């Protein structure tokens, strides 16, 4: 009798184990929490990389920690399934690094991530009086506003405001703006997707481009030019189809033209999106607008198949934290950035540079073929640069020099838990990210190397969430799960 019972138990145990694994995998509660102290192994969290920026595990009184001495550092996560949001919590110690942020990588090529604040010592140690409402804090050099609502209803001059992870409610208006009515042309080759900002007042939005399809990669290469208003609505667009060659022939299509004209637009800031793949090289951009200020990454294209001798490149940026990468070995070169220079000796290696010069700095190189990302905006002529956004508070923002009297921030200071500080950030996972086997986070600590600072990272906690499953949905999910196996 007992023997039979024991045999049945043995035979049933793998089945029970299978049900247990199925429950973990489908997770009807919709909440999945993971934690990893540095030095521990986790099937869901890889260690912080690269090793050149993160030192080995050290054991102190408060537990294990790793010293972060460079940036950015990356943390790869293998999500336990498809979830809507993820909250990342970091336990750490920091004595002098001014700003620590964490970002979710939303695009690998080109690298793009959304940053959220973890700690801002500039704000934590600020002696300015502050007001807090609904997670938004307003710091004032001298108390002018009684509430954040009053600040938003009647804001001061933009040039006196610095923001930290906060968008101002009032749209930008340039009272002194007058349209030029003149055509101006940028003749620098830009490769693939770009975005720029412009200002419109009693004039049509106009962009003429001359471009080439260099057919270096397989696939068709349509182009779309989109005009988007401050609410993110598309107010005008144009599309050009591929040149008809989808093979990677390495043969350029010859110069083709397209233009975008949108009339009767209300006054304000507009974004023009040049949506194109990496085979498309914009050889010239002609506009009637006064301003053409690029935001996001800028890819200065090579001129192989366009000009026999590559032309020198120069532009201006207000970015203080720049990264450069070149894709061809023969594009190794030196880039002059303000009063400094940066050598790009190797292809496909990212070179970071901290700009110490204040304000707008010029960037120049003898030839193109490099990809630049940064925390600022870019213009190819000084007269085309404008900055509709208020000053973004960074580790090197000099509030006195810039005449900043107000800082408005969506930021909560870290909480002290035992020997450690606890800070968290919430990210939404897009449909694309939900399908990825891995998601990657970036730990950003601007200027950490130059300032010779260090962060002691102790523990990561992640909380994935999605709506819970009821019994019917749970059964459907089990059927889907079995279907997915085969």
């Amino acid at each position, binding site marked *: 009798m*007992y*023997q039979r019972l*024991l*045999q049945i138990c*043995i*035979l049933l*145990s*793998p089945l029970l*184990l*299978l049900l247990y*694994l199925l429950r*973990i*995998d489908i997770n009807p509660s919709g909440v999945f929490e993971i934690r990893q102290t540095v030095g521990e192994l986790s*099937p*869901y969290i890889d260690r912080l990389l690269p090793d050149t920026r993160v030192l080995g595990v050290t054991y102190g009184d408060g537990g294990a920690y790793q010293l972060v001495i460079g940036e950015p550092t990356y943390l790869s996560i*293998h999500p*336990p399934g498809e979830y809507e949001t993820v909250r990342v919590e970091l336990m750490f110690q920091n004595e002098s690094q001014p700003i620590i942020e964490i970002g979710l990588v939303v695009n690998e090529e080109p690298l793009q991530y959304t940053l959220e604040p973890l700690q801002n010592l500039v704000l934590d140690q600020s002696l300015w009086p502050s007001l807090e409402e609904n997670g938004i804090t307003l710091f004032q050099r001298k108390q002018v506003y009684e509430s954040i609502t009053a600040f938003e209803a009647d804001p001061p001059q933009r040039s006196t405001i610095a923001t930290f992870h906060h968008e101002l409610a009032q749209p930008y208006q340039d009272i002194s703006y007058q349209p030029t009515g003149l055509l101006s042309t940028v003749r620098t080759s830009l490769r693939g997707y770009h975005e720029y900002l412009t200002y419109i007042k009693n004039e049509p939005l106009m962009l003429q481009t001359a471009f080439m399809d260099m057919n270096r990669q397989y696939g068709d290469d349509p182009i779309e030019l989109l005009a988007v208003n401050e609410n993110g609505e598309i107010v005008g667009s144009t599309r050009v189809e591929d040149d008809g060659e989808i093979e990677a022939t390495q043969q350029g299509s010859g110069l083709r033209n397209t233009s975008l004209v949108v009339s009767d637009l209300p006054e304000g800031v507009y974004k023009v999106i040049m949506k194109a793949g990496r085979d498309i090289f914009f050889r010239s951009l002609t506009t009637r607008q006064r301003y053409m200020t690029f935001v996001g990454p800028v890819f200065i294209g090579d001129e192989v198949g366009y000009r026999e001798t590559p032309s020198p490149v120069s532009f201006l940026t207000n970015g203080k934290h720049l990264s450069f990468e070149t894709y061809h070995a023969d594009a190794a070169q030196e880039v002059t950035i303000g009063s400094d220079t940066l050598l790009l000796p190797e292809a496909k290696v990212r070179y970071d540079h901290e700009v110490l010069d204040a304000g707008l700095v010029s960037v120049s190189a003898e030839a193109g073929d490099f990809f630049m990302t940064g925390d600022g905006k870019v213009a190819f002529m000084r007269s085309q640069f404008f900055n509709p956004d208020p000053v973004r508070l960074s580790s090197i923002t000099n509030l006195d020099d810039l005449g900043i009297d107000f800082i408005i921030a969506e930021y909560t200071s870290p909480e002290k838990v035992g020997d450690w500080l606890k800070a968290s950030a919430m990210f939404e996972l897009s449909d694309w990210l939900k399908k990825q086997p891995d998601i990657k986070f970036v730990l950003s600590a601007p200027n950490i190397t130059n300032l010779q600072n260090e962060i002691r990272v102790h523990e990561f906690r992640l909380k994935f969430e999605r709506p819970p499953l009821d019994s019917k949905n749970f059964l459907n999910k089990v059927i889907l799960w079995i279907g*997915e*196996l*085969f």
Partner: protein
Amino acid sequence: MDWRTVLRTGYFTSVGSYFAFLLLEWLKPGFVSNVFSPHLFLAVAIALGILWGWKKEWRNEKYELGIQVTAWLLGYDFDWVAWTIGRPLEEFRVLNNLVAVVTPFLICRIIQRY
């Protein structure tokens, strides 16, 4: 209680589970290994197999079959490990794998003789 029967049931259940969970892991990477290693079933199978053959009088045709199954499982595992970590051996990699596959069979032969 007939412990020989219980151990035999445990042994074959472990072997069957090992195959089943390995297959699940292959079909859905991380499904098993995120919680525990599927190779634990092999360790349990070996342990139960040793106990099952502890007494010479317990050994019969089913035990012989069990030894053969264990040899195949170990051969598969050793082969995978040797192939994965044997990359630097270059042209000796194939020979190294042959040795890895044959070794468990030799060990099982010795056990059977003993």
